[in-house]
C-alpha cells in the first residue's frame, strides 16, 4: 500500500536498528518519552523495543486523550446522559472508561440511557437533525487534533439553527501537559524520573505546528523530535534524539515533515481561537490540576455549550487508591509496577483509564508486550526453547 508500506519496511527497520545501536553510547543511557498514545501504540504494536539497545528506554507519556480525562468528567458525562431527553454521543473508547462507583457510559447505556457511539462530530450533528425532539450532546474529548472538528460541528449547528445540539467540551492542550511533567517534582527536583528527550506528537503537530515546542526545548533543555506514527518514523526519531543528546543539543527537529510545518494549520488554529478560550485550570488524570491546559467555548457560543445549558456537576472523585494510572501517565511508574495490572485490571475489566484505550500505556503493554514480564524459563523472543510435552 503506497504511503504506508514505505514506513513499515522490515529491512529498513533492521538497518535503522543497527544505526541506532551504533550511535547510542554504551556508557550512557537514554530516557525518551513519547508523549503521544499513537506512538505508544506503534512501539508496542510493532515490538519496536526489541529493536532498541538496552540503554535506550522508552517512557510512555500522557498523550492519550481517553486516559487523561479524570473520573469527575466521566461522571459528568454519565450525569448528562441521564438527563431527560438527552442523547449523548461519544467516541467509542470513552464508553468503557470507568467513572466512580464502577459506572461507565457503557453501563449507563445498558441501564437505558440513550448513548450513541459516533465516528465523527458530524454524525452527532446528523443525529440532532434527525431527532429534533431530543437534546443531542457531543462528548468532545481530545487534544488539538480533535478540537477543530468540534469547532466545525458547532459552526454548522449555528448555520443550521440547530437548537438541540451542544458540546460537552473536554479538549486539552499538549504543550501545557509536557510543561507540567517537566515541572513535576520527580523530574525537576528529585530527579527520580529521568527524561532526556521527547518524541513530539504527530497529529497534534499537524495542527499546532512545531513552534509551540521551541519554548520548552530551550527552557528545559530537552530535545524534541516531532515524528509520525509509523514504526520507521519512531525509529528515526529515536535516532535523531540520541544524536542530539550525544551532541549536547536541545532543539526541536521535525521528522514528520511530510505533514507538519513550523506554523501548523493556520485555518484550523484560527477557527479554534475564534470559538474557544483557555480554562484557568483543568484536572487531568495523573497530572492533577494543570493551569491553562484546556479549552472551553467562548461566551458567544454559549448556546452550544452543554456546561452552560445544564448545571453539570464539577466534582472530582479520586482514582482507585491502588490504581497507578497517575504515576504511569507521568512516567514515574511502568504498567507492571501497578498491583492491579493484569490481575484485576485488564482491557475487559479496566480499573484505570490507561487500560481502556488501545493507546493507553497499560492496555498497550498488556495487549502486546506482557510476554516480556513472563517469569524466566518461559519461551520469549523469536527462538522457541526446547519443547516439553504438555
Amino acid at each position, binding site marked *: *500500500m503506497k504511503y*504506508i508500506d514505505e514506513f*513499515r519496511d*522490515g529491512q529498513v*527497520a*533492521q538497518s535503522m*536498528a543497527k544505526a541506532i545501536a551504533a550511535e547510542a553510547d554504551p556508557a550512557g543511557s537514554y530516557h525518551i518519552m513519547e508523549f503521544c498514545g499513537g506512538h505508544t501504540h506503534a512501539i*508496542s*504494536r*510493532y*515490538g*519496536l*523495543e*526489541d*529493536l532498541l539497545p538496552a540503554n535506550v528506554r522508552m517512557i510512555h507519556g500522557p498523550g492519550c486523550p481517553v486516559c487523561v480525562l479524570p473520573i469527575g468528567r466521566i461522571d459528568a458525562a454519565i450525569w448528562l446522559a441521564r438527563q431527560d431527553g438527552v442523547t449523548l454521543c461519544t467516541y467509542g473508547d470513552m464508553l*468503557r472508561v470507568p467513572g466512580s462507583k464502577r459506572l461507565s457510559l457503557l453501563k449507563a447505556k445498558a441501564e437505558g440511557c440513550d448513548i450513541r457511539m*459516533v*465516528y465523527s462530530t458530524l*454524525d452527532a450533528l446528523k443525529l440532532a437533525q434527525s431527532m429534533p425532539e431530543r437534546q443531542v450532546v457531543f462528548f468532545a474529548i481530545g487534544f488539538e487534533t480533535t478540537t477543530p472538528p468540534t469547532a466545525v460541528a458547532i459552526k454548522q449547528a449555528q448555520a443550521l439553527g440547530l437548537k438541540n445540539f451542544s458540546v460537552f467540551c473536554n479538549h486539552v492542550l499538549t504543550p501545557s501537559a509536557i510543561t507540567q511533567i517537566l515541572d513535576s517534582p520527580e523530574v525537576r527536583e528529585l530527579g527520580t524520573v529521568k527524561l532526556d528527550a521527547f518524541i513530539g506528537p504527530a497529529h497534534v503537530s499537524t495542527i499546532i505546528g512545531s513552534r509551540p515546542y521551541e519554548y520548552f526545548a530551550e527552557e528545559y533543555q530537552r530535545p524534541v523530535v516531532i515524528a509520525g506514527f509509523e*514504526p520507521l518514523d519512531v525509529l528515526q526519531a529515536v535516532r535523531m534524539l540520541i544524536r542530539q543528546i550525544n551532541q549536547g543539543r536541545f532543539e526541536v527537529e521535525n521528522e514528520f515533515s511530510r505533514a507538519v510545518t513550523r506554523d501548523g494549520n493556520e485555518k484550523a488554529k484560527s477557527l479554534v481561537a475564534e470559538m474557544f478560550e483557555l480554562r484557568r485550570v483543568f484536572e487531568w488524570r495523573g497530572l492533577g490540576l494543570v493551569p491553562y491546559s484546556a479549552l472551553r467555548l467562548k461566551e458567544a457560543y454559549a448556546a452550544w455549550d452543554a456546561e452552560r445549558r445544564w448545571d453539570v456537576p464539577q466534582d472530582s472523585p479520586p482514582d482507585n487508591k491502588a490504581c497507578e494510572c497517575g504515576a504511569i501517565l507521568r512516567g514515574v511508574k511502568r504498567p507492571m509496577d501497578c498491583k492491579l495490572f493484569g490481575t484485576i485490571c*485488564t*482491557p*475487559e475489566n479496566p480499573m484505570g483509564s490507561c487500560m481502556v484505550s488501545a493507546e493507553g500505556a497499560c*492496555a498497550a503493554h*498488556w*495487549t*502486546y*508486550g*506482557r*510476554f516480556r514480564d*513472563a517469569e524466566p524459563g*518461559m*519461551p*520469549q*523472543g*523469536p527462538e*522457541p*526453547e526446547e*519443547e*516439553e*510435552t*504438555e
Partner: protein
Amino acid sequence: MTLPRRAHPRPLDLKTGRVDLTHGGGGRAMAQLVEELFIKGFDNEALNQRNDQAAFDVPAGRMVMTTDGYVISPLFFPGGDIGSLAVHGTVNDVAMAGAVPLSLSAGFIIEEGFPLADLKRIVDSMAKASRDAGVPVVTGDTKVVEKGKGDGIFITTAGIGMVPAGVVISGDRAKPGDAILISGTMGDHGVAVMSQRESLGFETAILSDSAALHTMVAEMVAAVPGIHVLRDPTRGGLAATLNEIASQSGVGMLMEEALVPVKPEVRGACELLGLDPLYVANEGKLICICPEADAETLLAVMRAHPLGVDAARIGACRADTHHFVQMKTAMGGMRVVDWLAGEQLPRIC
C-alpha cells in the same frame, strides 16, 4: 401431498407486501408464507413432507451437531447476505470437525413490517447456498415479532454431519511443534460488511469471502486424516481463534506477521478504520493445525482448491505455560496477539 392452490386465493405480494403478525400466527397466512416462500425455495424431500420435524436416514458413525444465530447488520453486503451466511457459517462449523455436513435446520425470527421482497431475496440466496453446498435445509420454523422487538430478521441454523472413521479433529489437539496454516487472506468479510454500514461511507471493491468450506475440508481430511485442529476464524478474526485454540490445547504459538496474507484493499480499509486485520471476521477461511510433517501436503491440497489458493503457513505451536500467541512483527520485533477486548464493530455475522 400437494396443497390445493385454492387454499390461498391470492398469492403473497412479494413485490410490495410486508410481513405482518399473522405470518407468524399459526393460521392460513403462515401456512401460505411457509408454502410459497420456504418450501418452494428450499424444495427437498424431507422438507416437502411438511411435518414439524424432518425424518431421514443417517450413516452409522460419529455425528457432529452445531447451531449458530445470525444477526448481521446490514442484511445484504457485497459478496453475500444473511441467508447465504446462515448456510455457510453452519456448514463450516460442521466441517471444522472434519465432518461431512448432511442437513440443516433454519429458524427465522422476522420483525413485523419486514418487506416480503427482502425475505424472498434472503430465502432464495439461502436456498442457492444450500443447493450449491449440497446440504439441504430439511426443517424450519418461522416467528414474527412486533415492530421494534427485532431488527428486520434474525436467522438461526443448526447443522449435522458425519465424521469419517479415524478422524479426530478438535481444538484441544494442537501440540508443540505443530504447523499453523490458514487457507487464505484475512479480514475480507468484516471489511466488506463494514463498508456497507451507513456511517462509514466508503466504497470498496472488497467482497465478503463467505463460502462453504466442506469440500476443501473433505480433500484435506482425505489427504491427511491426522489433522489436529480445524477452525474458521469468524468473530474476533484470526487473533481470537488462535487464542481459543492455544488455551484449549494448552500451547503457545509463534507466528510471523509477514506471512499472513491480507489483501491490499482490506489493509487500506483497516488503516482508515483503525482496525487490525488479524481481528476482523472471515466467513470462508479456515485455520489448520497439523503435524509439521503434513504441512506441505495440506498446503498443496488447499492451494489446489478454489477456496484455498492463497493458503499459507503462518507459524508454529510451541510449549508455553502462558499460552501466549506471539507474533514476530514485520519490523522484526515481538508482540502478543491478544484476545479482542470489547468489540471492534458490532454484529458482523
